[in-house]
């Protein structure tokens, strides 16, 4: 089964949901003309990244009563959509969230689990953290979604793999850092290495959409990519500029790779659980 993936590597305008929604609709229309089946936007694509005290102003509820959410639901009739937003629950808790929409329905919402609150990051100050890493079924098979820092930790990706995800969708607002003499920023090198590692070790497709642009002095490096189940890049390396990147993937490749390399078959999650339980028990003592 072939799927035409679109990566909307956009520059969201900080705090301006209306302008960002218009940009989403523009990319959706362009992607539609290019025959995209699944279009992915970056982390916090509706709001920009460092929203700080704007959080309550830019937050939305994930239902049809919310005009922004409804507009995107309606836009998912022909094309599956993944976008990033500030999700407000019924009790005014705020999450960094990614929604997967298909045929006018919400298929899944992921709340960012790991909120970096160190160095230049301050997410824990504004957001509650997610508690679940759950794969979900789509018309393209079983999918797992993570947001930025979530995939800097290997456990959420591993859990999604065990939960049946053959397609990993990673979105991020990854600031540029670590300029040295290398051909890429050290931050970019790290993320690309990790994405290739997940593809190789999970024999999975790994799709990553990162934003571009600037917020204060921080730049976001883009470089959105698709890694195949052999761990090779099908597309990557378009850094710094806005772009609508498309890449067709062949889901049968997952089966072919796993015939050759049965890492999933041989994985022993029960052993992991047993040993982890022992380790946690010991740590309690």
């Amino acid at each position, binding site marked *: 089964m072939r799927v035409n993936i679109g990566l909307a590597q956009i520059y969201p*305008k*900080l*705090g301006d949901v209306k302008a960002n929604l218009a940009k989403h609709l523009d990319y959706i229309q362009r992607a539609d003309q290019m025959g995209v089946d699944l279009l992915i936007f970056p982390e916090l694509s509706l709001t920009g990244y*460092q929203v*700080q*005290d*704007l959080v309550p102003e830019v937050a939305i509820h994930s239902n049809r009563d919310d005009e922004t959410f409804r507009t995107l639901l309606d836009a998912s009739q022909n094309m599956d959509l993944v976008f990033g937003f500030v999700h407000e629950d019924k009790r005014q808790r705020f999450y960094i969230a990614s929604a997967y929409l298909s045929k006018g329905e919400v298929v899944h919402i992921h709340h960012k689990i790991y909120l970096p609150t160190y160095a230049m990051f301050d997410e824990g100050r504004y957001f509650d953290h997610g508690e679940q890493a759950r794969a979900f079924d789509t018309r393209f098979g079983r999918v797992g979604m993570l947001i930025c820092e979530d995939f800097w930790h290997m456990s959420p990706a591993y859990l999604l793999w065990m939960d049946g995800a053959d397609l990993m969708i990673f979105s991020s607002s990854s600031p*540029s850092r670590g*300029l*040295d*003499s*290398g*051909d*890429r*920023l050290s931050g970019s090198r790290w993320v690309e290495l990790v994405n290739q590692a997940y593809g190789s070790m999970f024999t999975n497709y790994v799709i990553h959409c990162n934003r571009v*642009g*600037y*917020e*204060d*002095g921080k*730049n976001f490096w883009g470089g959105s990519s698709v890694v195949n189940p052999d761990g090779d890049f099908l597309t990557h390396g378009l*850094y*710094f500029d806005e772009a609508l990147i498309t890449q067709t993937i062949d889901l049968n490749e997952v089966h072919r790779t796993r015939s050759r390399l049965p890492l999933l078959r041989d994985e022993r999650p029960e052993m992991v659980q047993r040993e982890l339980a022992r380790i946690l028990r010991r740590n309690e003592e």
Partner: protein
Amino acid sequence: MTTKTQPDIMDRLEINTDIARKMLTGFIRDQIEKVGMKRAVMGLSGGIDSALSAYLSAEALGPENVLVVRMPYKTSSSASLDDAGLVIEALGLPSLDVPITDMADPLIDRFPDMSNLRKGNIMARLRMVTLYDQSVAWGGLVMGTSNKTEFLLGYSTIYGDSGVALQPIADLYKAQVRQLSKAMGIPQPIIDKAPSADLWEGQTDEGELGFTYNDVDQLLFLLVDERYTVDEVVEEGFDRAFVEKVWKRVKANHYKRTMPNIAKLSRRTIGHDFLYLRDWVGR
């Protein structure tokens, strides 16, 4: 005064100049477009820092949108004016000469025993006044020209050369400024000459600071970027007296790199818990 030269640290200070150029020109364009402008104005001293800022600004905005102002005091060397002229000519920049002697001297003459430090600060602040006046007349943001080394050392005048709207090269150490300047084709005499604030005849930064940029770049890279402790850099071979002198300077001058503290009284106070980016509104 000098410490063991550590070529491996100098190697680690090397940058990919293509990426730096892309990110910094993008930053300049972004900052200026966000405030609804398309132009910049900046002082051009004839030194490497302002030359690099001018080259980046010209590439980002188009040379016709970058007004450079030469603001000599009567003691400034004519070689500096000539070097600034090389940049103006090479880039085809609109330029203006506003000598500051007539503005500075009435204040300086009032205090016959005024130190060079005070005079230098007055000059730096009058240049800031001139540039912010041109900012309105020209319709452009005032471009910063400070590098990371001098910003960390506090080798600058608060509300003088630090009084700017954006800082494109303040995360580049002096060695990296030189590297990017070479890559951008800045005239060689400007790259080669000894850095100087040009406040009096024969003044050089390194003479005044008491150490070389190469030594202090390496030290600051370890202390700031790599988070070495003072003891750890001494283990790396740096002279303890040099290290302590530099680190004390960095700490003592932190006030030049931050906004003044606001006394908190209310529930929500500017600078404490009224938290929005500078780019809050824009673009």
